[in-house]
């Protein structure tokens, strides 16, 4: 019999606000500023490396940051037992374009290092001391069926004890992100199955 896994927390960012378990924790106060930097400051996060990241990494880091507030995963689990599975539609295109523009003058090394989408997973792992399985998928839209099956497979095969699973996509100021914490222990948020994941992902569009 297949093991049941559970969503113990989830978060969204849609460019206007940030939500944890469906409840708003930060809302945009002005249209002229960089929303992600505004949120970073507004949430009182202290991680100076944030400023050096590209937009996709800022988005992913913030989404995970609010989700993991009050949790120290690398103290609760072996770092090698914590997996991160992420997906996106536009890959690192936002930064690829900036990097290409920089080559007209002097190619920027700090932009170049962000010209791969899986760097967002690396930044999450560095920030939270995670050393487990990780994979980044690119698909035209969030594929709840595929990602749910993939994460449940990781946990069922004991490749991981816990998984950060989600989506982060950024291009030209348009953004959306959704991350879940998937664990083996039952909680009130619901089972980690395709139906629940679709429902939670869709919530960002209703806010």
């Amino acid at each position, binding site marked *: 019999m297949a093991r049941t896994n559970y969503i113990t927390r989830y978060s969204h960012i849609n460019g206007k606000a940030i939500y944890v378990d469906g409840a708003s924790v930060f809302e945009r106060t002005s249209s002229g500023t960089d929303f992600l*930097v505004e949120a970073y400051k507004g949430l009182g996060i202290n991680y*100076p490396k944030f400023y*050096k990241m590209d937009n996709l990494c800022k988005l992913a880091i913030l989404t995970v940051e609010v989700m993991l507030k009050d949790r120290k995963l690398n103290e609760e689990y072996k770092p090698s037992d914590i997996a991160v599975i992420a997906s996106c539609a536009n890959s690192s295109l936002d930064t690829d374009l900036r990097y290409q523009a920089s080559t007209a003058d*002097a*190619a*920027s*090394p*700090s932009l170049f290092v962000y010209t791969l989408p899986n760097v967002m997973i690396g930044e999450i792992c560095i920030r939270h001391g995670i050393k487990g399985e990780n994979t980044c998928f690119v698909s035209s839209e969030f594929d709840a069926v595929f990602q749910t099956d993939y994460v449940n497979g990781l946990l069922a095969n004991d490749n991981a004890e816990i998984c950060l699973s989600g989506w982060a996509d950024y291009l030209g100021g348009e953004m959306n992100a959704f991350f879940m914490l998937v664990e083996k222990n039952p909680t009130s948020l619901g089972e980690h199955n395709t139906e629940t994941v679709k429902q939670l992902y869709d919530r960002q569009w209703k806010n």
Partner: protein
Amino acid sequence: MEELMKTLKGQIVEQLNLQQIQPEDIGDDQPLFVEGLGLDSIDALEMIVLLQQKYGIKLANPADGPTVFKTVRSMAEYITAHKVN
């Protein structure tokens, strides 16, 4: 030299996106890497780009990097000695 160091501090903050630091917070003789500002290897590459973009100086020997980029003062001295007019 004082004016150049002041300009350099602003350029370093801008080029390296050090939004949490004010240019005037950087000491003339404060180490820029590791125990000082905590800059990393990618920042070192950005500093090389900065020299090239702002002052037309190409660091001919990468091994000179640690000496040139040790402090704002060492950078200013190198620029003064090598600046293309």
